[in-house]
């Protein structure tokens, strides 16, 4: 693992890919490598991109990556697609839009399934961000699953969160739930060559008017036509501005702290679950409890108490 970690730090593509697989599969060994690389993280600007399906996130991310490459920056991209709750499989198609970057050594693209996690991300996302960060990427772009309303998890892991909307697609601006409004650090109105764009922007601006507090940063709204590359340099500027704002106002540390907290909780949760459900000793016990709960011979709370007592003993 030491060797793997040191190769990751050097930016070796194969090693980065391998370590991501190991953490995703919850391999015992991965922890050793992760321990080594942690202190080499913190450099990458993590940008979360969320928005409904069809909003053009993949194309937008592709264009952002190209833009960053022109600036000489290296980019890591994580595309997340839903894992089927029935089959456990997933069709990971985000990279299709980005394949022209496949052979650019300054870009690393990884496609991941949610594997049961809710909130539009995957449980391994924190690990993957750390790995890409430690491997030297200047920017890490994370494309969440586009379910639209439930992806507030993205704010836990991103420095800058983009919310992508499309005029006429999905709910009108008014109907967007409060949560989404709050998490956006930058609003992107994509496919801005469609009818209704001015209205969409106006509605957004008026909602922002309502929640704006004097002296605080006002969330910018950027119009883009991703498939033509229009508006992308402006968007990059706004993203960079946001990072500068975080640094100047000493807010970056606070943000990152939230991420590390979420990461710690996630690792603890994972380990606990693994211990309880994978450990052979307890597995039979769990099944037995579930049977009894099903037959109403026991309730779930008592069952949980039994397991926890047993574990903490």
């Amino acid at each position, binding site marked *: 693992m030491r060797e793997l970690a040191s190769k990751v730090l050097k930016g070796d593509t194969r090693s980065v890919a391998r370590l991501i697989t190991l953490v995703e599969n919850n391999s015992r060994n991965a922890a050793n490598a992760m321990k080594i690389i942690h202190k080499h993280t913190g450099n990458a600007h993590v940008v979360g991109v969320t928005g409904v399906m069809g909003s053009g996130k993949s194309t937008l991310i592709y264009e952002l990556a190209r833009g960053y490459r022109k600036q000489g920056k290296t980019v890591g991209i994580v595309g997340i697609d839903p894992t089927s709750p029935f089959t456990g499989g997933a*069709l990971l*198609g985000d990279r*299709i*839009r980005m394949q022209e970057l496949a052979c650019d050594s300054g870009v690393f693209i990884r496609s991941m399934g949610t594997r049961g996690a809710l909130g539009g991300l995957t449980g391994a996302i924190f690990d993957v961000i750390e790995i890409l960060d430690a491997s030297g990427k200047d920017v890490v772009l994370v494309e969440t699953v586009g379910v639209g309303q439930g992806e507030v998890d993205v704010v836990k892991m991103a420095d800058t969160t983009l919310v992508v909307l499309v005029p006429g697609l999905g709910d009108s601006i008014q109907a967007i739930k409060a949560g989404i409004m709050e998490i956006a650090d930058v609003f992107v109105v994509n496919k801005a060559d469609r009818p209704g764009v001015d209205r969409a922007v106006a509605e957004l601006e008026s909602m922002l008017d309502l929640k704006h507090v004097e002296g605080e940063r006002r969330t910018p709204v950027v119009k883009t036509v991703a*498939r033509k590359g229009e508006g992308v340099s402006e968007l990059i500027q706004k993203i960079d501005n946001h990072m500068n704002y975080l640094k100047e106002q000493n807010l970056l540390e606070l943000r990152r702290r939230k991420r590390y907290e979420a990461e710690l909780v996630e690792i603890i949760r994972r380990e606990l679950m693994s211990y309880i459900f994978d450990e052979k000793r307890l597995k039979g016990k769990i099944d037995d409890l579930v049977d009894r709960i099903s037959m109403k011979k026991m309730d779930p709370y008592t069952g949980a108490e039994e397991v926890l007592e047993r574990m903490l003993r």
Partner: protein
Amino acid sequence: MFDEKELSGIKKAREEWEEKSYKEYLKKHPERKKRFTTLSGLDVKALYTPEDIAHLDYLKDIGFPGMEPFLRGIHATMHRGRIWTMRMFSGFGTAEETNKRYHYLLEHGETGLSVAFDYPTLYGYDTDHPFARGEFGKCGVAVSSLKDMEILFDGIPLDKITTSMTINGPAAVIWAMYIANAERQGIPKDKIGGTIQNDILKEYIAQKSFIFPPEPSLRLIIDTFEYGSKYVPKWNTISISGYHIREAGSTAVQELAFTLADGLTYVKAAMERGLKIDDFAPRLSFFFNSHNDFFEEIAKFRAARRIWAREMKNLGAKKPRSLWMRFHTQTAGCTLTAQQPENNIVRVTLQALAAVLGGTQSLHTNSMDEALALPSEKAVLIALRTQQIIAEESNVTNTVDPLGGSYYIEWLTDKMEEEVYKYFDRIEQLGGVIPAIEKGFFQREIAESAYRYQREVDEMKRVVVGVNKYQLDEPISIPILKVDEKGERIQIERLKKLRRERDNAKVEKALNALRKAAEGDENLMPYILDCVKAYATLGETCDVLREVFGEYKEPIIY
């Protein structure tokens, strides 16, 4: 269509039959399946009677061949007057090799030529382009310049034979080469006949050999309509296709609906440009698949004629010729198997027969080695003979639309038409064909049907003889065609020589003029003709257009 009293008598009798004979019989001998459907999924009853077509009016809905509604045929005599063109899709390797195959086929009785191009050509790349690596001549002939076109048709009198060319993205350029070659042979362009497929909408939907985005592609297509109607009047400037949509996995209903919707989109686009419908409509042609469900295919072809005539009339067409649905058919490649390839001869026969009974104007029959390689000489000969036997020996061509009046066929024709209009409505709701393509509508429908079909085969709900039933444990051993590897080098050498020996100043001038014209809105055909006549290559010409029009990126739908 029937007398009220007579009909109610039949109804009563049928109900009695159902209760007594049919249900009684079922008790002792259950039917083989719970549900019988066409391949499209339409439910099929045990029996069709006059009741099922009583709602039809013979004169209005069925009528006579050569007149509205054109259901029974576009000409009064159909195959009694002229047997369909036997046109075998063909091409591989160098122009010399394909020319040889063309002579072979003509010698053995084919009556029209059909050109298959290789992938680099289909995408507008010359043989020496990096993307062409490994692809030269493998699934069609490589044509990189007018020189290749000259060799391809060497010894073939272009005023005596018509040629269909399966080319889409770079269709205008290839067509220009054909025209230029004919002129070199001394044949003026108003004497040549043929077809260019030139149907970009179905490329986005199914065949995927697109180059430019929809808007400039449509512009180019309408340029060809305009140019053709003025200067090349015997040429079909488009072959609006359903074949590929079907091969990609759609049902017969989808094939019909999507093809006709595409067709109407082209017509409307041309009219928007200012062309008069009766000026270009007579030269629109179609291309359908002929698949396994014998009667459904026949119903499909008939419904196609009736729907097209109606819709074109609604758009304002006045000339009868503008209402004619003229089509070429190809038997379904995707139904042919690698296992026990001789069985494919039988499949193709049935599919070809359906096309003939459906009233096709032109027919390609696949060879038995379809699933393994390009057709060998022996295999393609059998495929051609299949058509000739149907034409000469079976007597099905003795009368027009022999299945007209069959209760099942008339009912099925009507039913398919109904389903097609449902699709028309959905497409309209999505904003039309191009918005629907961008939303992935057709691609999703097709992918669903394709997946469903595969599941049915895998689960043995659908039998493929020799593959999941009646299998043989024998190695597949029929001689297959191999494309000569040397051809690629010959072609690359030829290209190098061409670029050296031509007047490069002239080429550059022509390409620059094309670029400028492409940026504006003039008809591009004259400019493209100048380029090809100067021996600009296919790749060079298409690169100019790529520069101006951009390249298309498709949405991904599973």
